[in-house]
């Protein structure tokens, strides 16, 4: 074993250690510990025999910034910091975990010694040491390590008291991967296996294949013709692990969307209505887009929908826009930081791997968490929601900011049921010139003879079984390898290189390596050419000892697969080498009809593409709709509506998310037009973002979204309708053109397949059918096509805990199944994301009121629709009067508002959604720093007349606008014939006044108080 040198770097004792201060703050606030101060020491373990003087130069000049830091070589720095610590906690990675700090330190060492490191004997590994001062017990130090500083799935830690540390110091071997497995290939003779044995095989190898799928594979491998064909390639009739794993990955719910493609028998138990739908995806999602495109005819702006890694629309005569949103829920539940980081850099590769490859111009992130102030016991294996929140936030921060892609839009939704699985939606948009190398940029096609080239990072065991894993509920045996950590800079170097290669016309096709790794990327691209042959010993590995199937399935990050014509390969590899990017020829595309897998010249897998991609049997599922019974509550009318408004503004789903937004770079690339925060103090909540992706042009894009899982408890049909309406409305408010607008649907559901563990599967499936039907009905009605989407279907927590099914649930969330397990299912959630063209960004608008004297209007009808509202929720009710969407009227309204905005008749526009009219009024006012005077009786309204209902109803499709007085006539003329009313005006006094029809004050609150109520809850997590 090589020598390990320990280099430590810390801030000079007289300087602040902001990193340490942050840890101390969190120890106090999150864990309630009496810590006085924390300082940090960065540790580098240098493995290898290097001369002492070189190591010292490396420590003092390379790793240390002598202006502010101090370093030491094989000497504990803790003793030299004049810091009377009581405990030392050191946290380092487990072997094989992505260590970006260590990688960069190793590269720096290589520059110093002017040669590359020997991967067998040399390396640099990073760790972090925390010096704790305060009255802290060993148990508390342990708790700090476990719950705050480290994640045991990926990290190890050491805890020493000061005495122990001073006496013995700390030394441990470098976290080198030393476990080798022989590159063997296992085989199974499936035809001798019983059904039970088939299922055991599926379970034990985490294949997540159903019995009928295992049987289909067994039957296929019994076909004499196929057996004869295999013989020619030197393969027996038995299935190899390479084949079985590749099939399981390709057929996973994550990749094949088996539920969305199932044949579903739907029954409405209330009305008796019954029908069968052959794939809700084809019928409702893709089906609606086809209808819209047909209707648009020559004005159709869709270029590539549902076929590539992202959907593509035409933006103008020069540019196409690719957009995709993905989820990364399960990994974020296990390791919030790594999971979310991988989520964002992973979705970056979708538009990047679309067509010939897009330049990435914006990110958008939507998170669903349990409340961060969760104070009930946590079910086993779950992390505290505050830790999930902060970890996810930071992962997306590092992923987005380091990649140089502005995070322009997002939101956070809170519901206790996200305790079991947080939802982490990450989206990315990119632009392509309409033509690349004389061909349409949005098309691609590997050709037989083209070489399969893997570009970017190396392969380790990271994320093996990720695709199948995300198709499973979290359970006791979840593998630690399900967690990967992204590396934005390796990816940035790769995308810098590939865009150059694209413009030099060096490749014919590109796709990303995400879930399923090479199996998925090459398996997919093979369809373009008609076959592919892969040499599994060729991809570069992070460490030796991977089996062929692991190399095929690994989900190591930052990798793209491209198809390079043989005559271009020299230039391609040369450019890669110069730009310091690893690129390796790993096979070639063929027209054999097979996905042919070899290892050191021997065939280890032979899968006909047709069977691989189309062989999965269609599922037959049952759905039954029984509308849930929530009674409309009988609430007393509140006396102090101002107090209620402040309470509403402080609700987690309403309050300011500035703490998160500020930490995301939302204006890199220099094209920001409407930022996520706006108003006189740059802290109001924008409805949507506007940016100029091409700085030389005056047109741009609006990015928006809608999400309202709270309505799912009443009816997922209206949940989906409201999400779509909200997304479109948000985009319209900033100046997005509803006639040049496209959507993405992201469904995050709980398991909807009836089983012992999911006794309510038929109902959950009916919820899904209804939601997808709404996507159909409302995208068609609005003329806004879906261009891509994704579903994630197993967002449940399931753990055998031996609970009493008849007793109280000690965790306060989820249900106890008859067998005593706890199941927590997320509320059915649809995220609807929007991109729209803004023909002239100088016409874009923001939500804040601008001038005293401007007139205040409301567009749209308010009804007593408080079912699922924040108001009811605040009083502990769900209710039944869910907001309904009248898309025909709403579309007309949005078209008129578009004109009003483009003609410059509007000084501000803001949608009314969570918290209703009252919250929207308050937000408009305090964001603009000017008061509003409102006559509630002027609001177009149908209902019982209760002021609290008018104020807090969440009726859909409503927008508040302010209009300069001199534009009043033009504006009213334009809105003629639609439901709208002038309801007040902007006033100079910083106060929100709402009066009833008799002139009595219902609300009179100072803006500073309203704003404080809105800003306080999440000022800092």
């Amino acid at each position, binding site marked *: 074993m090589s020598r390990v040198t320990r280099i430590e770097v810390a801030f000079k004792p007289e300087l*602040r250690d*902001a*990193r340490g201060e*942050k840890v101390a703050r969190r120890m106090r606030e999150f864990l309630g510990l009496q810590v006085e101060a924390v300082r940090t020491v960065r540790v580098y373990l240098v493995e290898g025999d290097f001369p002492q003087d070189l190591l010292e130069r490396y420590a003092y*000049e*390379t*790793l240390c*910034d*002598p*202006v*502010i*830091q101090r370093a030491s070589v094989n000497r504990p720095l803790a003793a030299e910091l004049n810091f009377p610590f009581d405990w030392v906690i050191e946290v380092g990675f487990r072997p094989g975990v992505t260590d*970006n700090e260590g*990688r*960069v*330190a190793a*590269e720096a060492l290589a*520059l110093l010694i002017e040669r590359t490191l020997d991967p067998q004997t040399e390396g640099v590994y990073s760790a972090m040491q925390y010096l704790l001062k305060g009255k802290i017990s060993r148990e508390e130090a342990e708790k700090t390590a476990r719950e705050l500083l480290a994640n045991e799935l990926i990290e190890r830690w050491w805890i020493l008291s000061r005495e122990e540390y001073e006496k013995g110091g700390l030394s441990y071997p470098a976290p080198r991967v030393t476990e080798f497995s022989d590159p063997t290939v296992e085989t199974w003779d499936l035809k001798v296996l019983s059904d039970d044995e088939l299922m055991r095989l599926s379970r034990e190898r985490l294949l997540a294949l159903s019995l009928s799928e295992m049987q289909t594979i067994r039957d296929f491998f019994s076909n004499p013709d196929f057996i004869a064909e295999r013989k020619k390639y030197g393969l027996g009739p038995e299935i190899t692990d390479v084949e079985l794993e590749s099939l399981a990955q390709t057929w996973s719910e994550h990749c094949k969307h088996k539920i969305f493609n199932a044949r579903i028998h739907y029954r409405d138990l209330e009305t008796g209505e019954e029908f069968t739908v052959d794939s809700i995806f084809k019928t409702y999602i893709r089906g609606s887009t086809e209808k819209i495109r047909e209707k648009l005819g020559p004005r159709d702006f869709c270029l590539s929908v549902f076929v590539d890694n992202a959907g593509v629309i035409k933006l103008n005569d020069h540019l196409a826009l690719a957009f995709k949103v993905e989820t990364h829920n399960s990994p974020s539940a296990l390791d919030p930081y790594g999971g979310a980081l991988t989520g964002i850099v992973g979705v970056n590769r979708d538009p990047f791997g679309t067509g010939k490859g897009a330049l990435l111009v914006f990110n958008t992130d939507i998170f669903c968490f349990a409340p961060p102030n969760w104070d009930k016991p946590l079910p086993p294996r779950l992390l505290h929601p505050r830790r999930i929140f902060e970890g996810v936030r930071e992962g997306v921060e590092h992923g987005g*900011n*380091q*990649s*140089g892609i502005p995070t322009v839009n997002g939101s956070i939704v809170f519901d206790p049921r996200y305790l079991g699985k947080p939802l982490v939606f990450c989206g990315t948009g990119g632009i392509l010139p309409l033509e690349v190398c004389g061909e349409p940029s949005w098309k691609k096609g590997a050709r037989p003879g083209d070489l399969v080239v893997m570009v970017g990072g190396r392969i380790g065991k990271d994320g093996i079984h990720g695709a199948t894993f995300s198709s499973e509920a979290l359970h006791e045996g979840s593998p630690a390898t399900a967690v990967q950590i992204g*590396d*934005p*800079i390796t990816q*940035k*170097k790769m995308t*810098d290189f590939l865009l150059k290669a694209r413009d030099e016309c060096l490749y014919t096709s590109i796709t990303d390596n995400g879930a399923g790794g090479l199996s998925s990327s090459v398996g997919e691209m093979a369809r373009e050419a008609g076959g592919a042959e892969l040499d599994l010993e060729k991809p570069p590995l992070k460490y030796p000892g991977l089996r062929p199937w692991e190399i095929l399935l690994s989900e190591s990050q930052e990798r793209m697969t491209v198809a390079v014509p043989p005559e271009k390969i020299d230039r391609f590899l040369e450019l890669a080498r*110069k*730009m*310091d990017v690893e690129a390796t020829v790993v096979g070639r595309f063929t027209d054999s009809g097979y996905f042919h897998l070899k290892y050191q010249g021997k065939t280890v897998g032979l899968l006909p593409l047709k069977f691989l991609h189309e062989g999965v049997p269609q599922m037959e599922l049952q759905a039954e709709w029984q509308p849930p019974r929530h009674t409309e509550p009988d609430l007393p009318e509140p006396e102090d509506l101002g107090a209620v408004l402040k309470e509403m503004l402080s609700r987690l789903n309403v309050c300011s998310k500035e703490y998160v937004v*500020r*930490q*995301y*770079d*939302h*204006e*890199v*690339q*220099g*094209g*920001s*037009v*409407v*930022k996520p*925060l*706006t*108003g*006189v103090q*740059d802290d109001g909540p924008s409805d949507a973002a506007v940016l*100029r992706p091409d*700085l*030389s042009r005056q047109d741009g894009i609006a990015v928006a979204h809608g999400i309202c899982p709270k309505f799912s408890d009443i009816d997922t049909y209206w949940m989906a309708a409201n999400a779509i309406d909200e997304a479109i409305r948000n985009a319209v408010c900033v100046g997005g053109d509803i006639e040049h607008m496209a959507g993405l649907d992201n469904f995050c559901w709980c398991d909807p397949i009836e089983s012992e563990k999911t006794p309510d599967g038929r109902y959950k499936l009916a919820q899904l059918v209804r939601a997808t039907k709404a996507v159909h009905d409302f995208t068609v009605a609005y003329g806004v096509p879906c261009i891509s989407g994704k579903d994630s279907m197993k967002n449940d927590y399931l753990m055998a805990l031996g609970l009493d099914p008849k007793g109280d649930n000690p965790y306060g969330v989820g249900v106890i199944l008859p067998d005593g397990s706890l199941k927590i299912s997320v509320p059915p959630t649809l995220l609807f994301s929007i991109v729209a063209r803004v023909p002239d*960004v*100088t016409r*874009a608008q*923001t939500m804040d009121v*601008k001038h005293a004297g401007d007139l205040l209007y409301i567009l749209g009808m308010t009804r007593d629709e408080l079912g699922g509202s924040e108001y009811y929720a605040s009083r502990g009710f769900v209710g039944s009067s869910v907001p309904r969407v009248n898309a025909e009227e709403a579309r007309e309204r949005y078209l008129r508002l578009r004109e009003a905005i483009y003609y410059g008749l509007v000084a*501000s526009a803001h949608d009314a959604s969570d918290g209703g009219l009252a919250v929207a009024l308050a937000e408009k006012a305090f964001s*603009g720093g000017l008061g509003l005077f409102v006559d509630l009786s002027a609001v177009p309204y149908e209902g019982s007349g209760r002021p609290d209902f008018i104020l807090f109803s969440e009726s859909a499709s409503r927008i508040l606008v302010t209009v300069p007085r001199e534009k009043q006539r033009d504006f009213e003329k334009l809105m003629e014939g639609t439901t709208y009313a002038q309801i007040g005006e902007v006033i100079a006094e910083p106060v929100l006044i709402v009066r009833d029809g008799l002139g009595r004050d219902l609300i009179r609150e100072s803006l500073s108080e309203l704003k404080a109520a809105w800003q306080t809850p999440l000022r800092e997590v």
Partner: protein
Amino acid sequence: MKPRALVLFGYGINCELETAHTLALVGAEPEIVHLSELIYGEKSLRDYHLLCFPGGFLDGDHLGAAQAAAHRLRHARIRTSGERLMDHILEFIQAGKLIIGICNGFQLLVKLGLLPGFDGHYGERLVSLTYNDSGRFEDRWVWLKVNQESPCVFTRGLKKLYFPVRHGEGKFMVQNEEVLNKLVARQQIVLQYIHPRTGKPTEEYPYNPNGSVMAIAGICDATGRIFGLMPHPEAFNHTTNHPRWTREEVSEDELGLVIFRNAVEYIQETLLS
């Protein structure tokens, strides 16, 4: 002839497009050049008048902001000639040409010791940029006061600026009081964060977003031809970049273009005349 500007990219730089766009707007001829093109001798610094180190996350800012990148540049040799890239940069400086480092580029300049460059002495690290006092990366716009006594050629004639900062490591620190005193005495402090009400340099968060000593946001070398700043002038290349453009009049004169226009004019007056 237009002034030629080399906008460096690669290894995590991510503001190269808007920096080049802004340079083109003020009449320069920008070229985005990958570090490898310099190292492989395909491009030479000698052909340019202005060298831009744009913002980004060089090497992910692991080891500290721009720390690894500074090490990379210090050790880089031109493959074709064996010369050190640093010698080319020093030659570039000696030739009276201009260098600007923005955000991560500023961090790189200080870690390379090209700033503060007292007495034409380059290469020694005397100042640094480190973690914000808040412990957080933040994106927000800040008011800046320009030191009109400074020799900095990029800020000639300017008094007050309003640009975004977007960094987690922007706290300006000095090795010792002497360094700070020299910076003051030699007017090398170019930009300071100010309180919008008083117009005075401030310690108050968030107007001083990171806790920089003396509210320092940007400095230059002794010649005034090397300039580093944390805020992003290139992110204010259009009136709609201003955070309140929908409610305030934003004049073209306020744009971050002014910084680059000064550079272009200086080059035209001195190097191209």
